[in-house]
């Protein structure tokens, strides 16, 4: 059934479709603190957009509350800065109503794991085709420094001066457990890698969850240094690549094997193990994804980065359209007068 919206949308795009990153920079000042990790996500996003080959009026950024919530103002696309924790509700409704749009959700560890936690698990389960970027800085920054659901136990913050008593969520495990089809992790110190992950998220049909470590210079500076600084990250992270063995280390001298279901680090330069012994990453294997995700808070294992899982399930909004189409095909387009008349009626 064609509506007024369809008629407007059917008009062909008139302007140039060849964009540069500059086309996505609106004429406003970026008001994040100098050195904020969020800024490092902005340029990969602006650089990615021209690669997508879609008119920019078809792109929407939806955010919640927190430092991450400002993101849509800095992208010259359509945008909706909503309320705390609810970006996914708004984005879900938008994408279900308008499957033609590319919908991005920008959220944070407080917004998405705490107040928006329920919407997050249901967005994962439902598999609406949304690209979720979660800026994780392991602290509430916009409210000036309280511990968040991803802060570690013992973390000293303004609301935990004697150390936080909570244990953190592992966001990628939570996403996998809730049924997310695409789960990845990146960080603010490697913009090219991040841009590639965001591109993968865009290409994935269904919900995509990208956890992004973003350093908060003011309230939790250096939280991810071990995993993001050039000097230490090679020994403390492992970048997952589909079909490739799990090798890491500055000199690519270490790898991961499975001992039962438990991942273990082995050295490749001592003669006991070779690359052929190593675990091979398979994005389609959701059991493996859980095992890899669980390496996250281990002190002995490198932290997994990259795409943990990419599997296909029909996106929700597509099922909605299919159900409508099926009804119309089998029963014919609804006759409104007949609907009003109901099943039984009488003449006076």
């Amino acid at each position, binding site marked *: *059934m064609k*509506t*007024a*919206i369809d008629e*407007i*949308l059917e*008009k062909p*795009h*008139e*302007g140039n479709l060849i964009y540069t990153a500059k086309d996505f920079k609106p004429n*406003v000042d970026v008001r994040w603190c100098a050195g904020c990790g969020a800024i490092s996500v902005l340029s990969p996003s602006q650089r990615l957009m021209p690669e997508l080959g879609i*008119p*920019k*009026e*078809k*792109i*929407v950024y*939806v*955010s919640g509350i927190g430092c991450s919530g400002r993101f*849509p*103002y800095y992208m010259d696309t*359509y*945008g*909706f*800065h*909503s*309320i705390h924790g*609810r970006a996914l*509700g*708004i*984005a*879900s*409704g*938008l994408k*279900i*109503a*308008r499957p*033609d*749009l590319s919908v991005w959700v920008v959220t944070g560890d407080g917004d998405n794991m705490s107040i928006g936690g*329920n*919407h997050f698990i*249901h967005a994962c389960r439902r598999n609406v085709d949304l690209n979720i970027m979660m800026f994780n800085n392991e602290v509430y920054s916009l409210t000036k420094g309280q511990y968040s659901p991803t802060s570690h136990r013992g973390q000293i913050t303004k609301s935990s001066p004697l150390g936080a008593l909570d244990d953190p969520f592992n966001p990628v495990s939570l996403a996998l457990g809730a049924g997310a089809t695409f789960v990845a992790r990146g960080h603010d110190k490697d913009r090219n890698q991040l841009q590639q992950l965001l591109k993968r998220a865009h290409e994935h049909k269904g919900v995509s969850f990208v956890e992004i470590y973003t350093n908060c210079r003011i309230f939790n500076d250096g939280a991810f240094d071990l995993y993001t600084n050039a000097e230490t990250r090679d020994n403390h992270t492992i970048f997952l690549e589909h079909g490739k063995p799990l090798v890491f280390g500055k000199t690519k001298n270490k790898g991961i094997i499975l001992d039962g279901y438990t991942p273990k680090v082995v050295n490749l330069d001592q003669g006991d193990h070779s690359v052929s012994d190593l675990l091979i990453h398979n994005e389609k294997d959701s059991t493996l994804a859980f095992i890899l995700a669980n390496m996250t808070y281990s002190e002995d294992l490198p932290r997994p980065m990259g795409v943990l899982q990419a599997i296909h399930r029909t996106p929700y909004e597509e099922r*909605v359209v299919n159900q*409508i189409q099926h*009804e*119309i095909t089998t*029963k014919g*387009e*609804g006759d*409104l*007068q007949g*609907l*009003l*008349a*109901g099943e*039984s*009626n*009488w*003449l*006076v």
Partner: protein
Amino acid sequence: MTKILEHLEEATIRFAGDSGDGMQLVGTQFSETAGFAGNEVNTFPDYPSEIRAPEGTLYGVSAFQVHFGTRNIHTSGDFIDVLVAMNASSLKVNLTNLRKGGIIIANTEGFDAHNLALAKYETNPLEDETLNGYEVHSLNITRELKSSLKEVGVSSKLIAKIKNIFALGITYWLFHRSMEPTANWINKKFKGKDDVILANVSALHAGWNYAERDEHFRKQYVIDRSPLPPGRYRNITGNEAIALGLVVAARKANLPLFLGSYPITPATDILHSISGYKKYGVKHLQAEDEIAGICSAIGAAFGGSLAATTTSGPGLSLKTEAMGLAVITELPLIVVDVQRAGPSTGIPTKTEQGDLLMGMFSRHGEAPMPILAASGSGDCFDITLEAARIALKYMTPVLILSDGYIGQASEPWKIPSVNSIPEIKAYFTTDPSNFAPYKRDEQTLRRQWAVPGFEGMEHRIGGLEKEDGSGNVSSDSINHEKMVRLRQEKIERIANDIPDAVVEGEQEGDLLLISWGSTYGAAKTAFERLKEKGTPVSFVHLRYMNPFPKNLASILDRFQRVVIPELNMGQLKLLIQAKYLKPVIGIHKVQGKPFKSVELEEKLDNLLTQKVELV
């Protein structure tokens, strides 16, 4: 033996039994048949919150009341004329409402020692003096069914399921009704199951024949056709009417419809209906909670749908923050609250009008939004169309207040012709050269609306205060006050675009009765009765709660005293007193039940004769 035919103007029948006794079903059938017979009808389904409450208990009684007559049927009936009681508990809880001399049809199977104990009867009321002064017909329905259906050959299991239909047959005899509409319904409902159809239709006739044969049934009652405007009619509940209203409004606005909702009594039927309308192109999301329900609707509205969310009190509490977001982003949105008895979980299945002030004031900051209240089941359709018109014309969320009573009660509804319903306009901006998201239409103050996909109008909106015109984020103090005033002024201007309130009766005088929402029926009936008696009282019903009709101030000025009956502690009273500085006499009832017209009639009579002080 000869039976007597007696003509009546109106009657009220109540079917009562356990939740599993099928009382809602026979009540619905009885009301449909009354509609077919050309009567005015108003119903009241009254059931417990428990899905299958323990059998035979006082709190587990499920009932369906039908008030039908030749004219002026505005309520579901003050008192019961005929009570069908399937067990002792259903007799006990309904007896106080039975008219003296009323008819009781009791199934003696529900009056054994166990049932009597559950109903806390020490002796059997069918056998002692409890029911002196009533016309009592006691019968063992299973025994009667077995003997009359001997030749048909119906299993005992099936017999247990058609006892309600037998009782319905008796009531059809009593009111001289045709059995055809129900027989047709049975044939349709159980299509393909010939044994079930045969059993049900036979039970219906067996009930009729039982009454026809039984010498204690001496009188049949005839209720003539109503002088209704000609046309095609159906029965409709308020919830059904809202669902239909949403679909028609979207079609008339030429927009896709999106419903984001979460199940909650007594509003869920709207979600049920909409979820079945796929072939009309409707999209819905049963969200993970009330907040996601409204947020998904806001998202869909941002994308250019006619979007709605439906709920009841506790859900409205949860939605308030998002309603504030819809106010500041100035997006069209329909929020439906089918009010129920509160506070908190309250009594989920019982009605109340306790959410008017929440609708007005629950959002933080200055966050005005229009509020419309439906006066009856059928009016829920019109009010939904009106809500859509206002939402799109003024770019604002609109709250519709219905309640558990009109949401679930049904009445005959003259089926409108889709073609005769006026178009609703959605005001999109398609010219990028002239676009700014908070640039306003001079007359309505409506902001410009461009949705994702419109080329060259990419912009950002959100919950932060906006700069007038450009829509850029702004914390400027002067701009903030300007925007607060603009949003307020926009809602107030809607008063120029809605019908004046209408005074029935004398246009000035001593006493003005004002009703709103579902109190319309009882208030209107009370007003008509008083008028017939020559009592000087005037009547206004309000459907527009915010803003009020423009002429309300001058109406209030023309009366000495104003009285407002409400199913709350005086919420409209507070608004009227605050806005117009006019003292109001409140009549309050918070029992989970609608007003009886006779209650209002008595109170108004007292006010008129004895100059009672303010309540």
